[in-house]
């Protein structure tokens, strides 16, 4: 029992030290998110799409990466974009990269995981946002075709 309480004390101390170490970067990321939430508006996002499915898929992935907010926001914006004629490929890439990529979180990710991990994870997430959006729409079209 004594050993367990000692271990718990050390664990809490170490966890607290980690929290202190991460806190400035975490506050910086939160600050950035506040700024992005105000400066990157839904209107701005709408205005960036061009109408070309391939180009829009890339744009959707990029915009998703710089957007911040709750996931439902990406569904609402995505739904509106679909209504405006933006392709489902682009909208899918947007809602996927909205939650898997995060430009404002990069400094914290880099500080905790290092350059190589951060670059690889974000590169893979970017590529997979495009691949998964293409596959999703293709499979959906296939099932709609045979239904």
């Amino acid at each position: 029992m004594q050993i367990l309480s000692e271990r718990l004390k050390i664990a809490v101390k170490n966890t607290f030290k980690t929290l202190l170490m991460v806190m400035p970067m975490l506050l910086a990321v939160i600050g950035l998110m506040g700024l992005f939430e105000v400066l990157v508006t839904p209107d701005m996002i709408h205005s960036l799409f061009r109408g070309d499915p391939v180009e829009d898929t890339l744009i959707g992935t990029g915009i998703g990466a710089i957007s911040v907010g709750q996931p439902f926001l990406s569904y609402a914006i995505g739904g509106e974009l679909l209504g405006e004629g933006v392709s489902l490929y682009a909208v899918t890439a947007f809602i996927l990269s909205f939650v898997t990529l995060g430009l404002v979180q990069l400094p914290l990710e880099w500080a905790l995981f290092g350059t190589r991990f951060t670059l690889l994870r974000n590169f893979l997430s970017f590529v997979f946002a495009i691949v998964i959006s293409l596959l999703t729409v293709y499979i959906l079209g296939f099932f709609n075709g045979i239904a």
Partner: protein
Amino acid sequence: MASHKQKKVVKGKSGLIMLGVVAVMYLVTFYVNADAGKEALKAGFEIVKMIAPILLFVFFLMSLLNTFLAPKSISKHLGEESGVKGWGIALLGGILSHGPAYIWYPMLADLRKHGARDGLIMAFFYTRSIKLPWLPLMISYFGFAFTLILTLLVILGAWVQGLIADKLMSLWDDS
């Protein structure tokens, strides 16, 4: 084989520098458009209010893991030899974890330091894009078939990304 568990945790003053940069960005925003600055600050406080309970939970979880899970055990469940079980924990953990991804960074970095594989951590990150509480809303916007196909592809994509990451990390460590 050179271990790819050479985890570089960048310490030092990067956090403070970044915080300083963000403070300057706020000052500039206030100078250019005071209302936008106030709104951004308010949005930041809202985020703090939202993440505070989840952050407390994550640190509570970290303390428990550090107390009851020895590094050897982490290595066994999430390390090189973890196999299907490791994938299961990573993929399901990502789906079930709540709140923004960056809240989980400290705990994941801690697990990584103690031997968890990069591929599993990346898979965890990717399945976090499946937001269980928001699935009904996604269905209402895009339909059930779209949501189901996307969700399954995300799980598959997370696994493939993890495999690629493990392979590349191991190749880079060997070279």
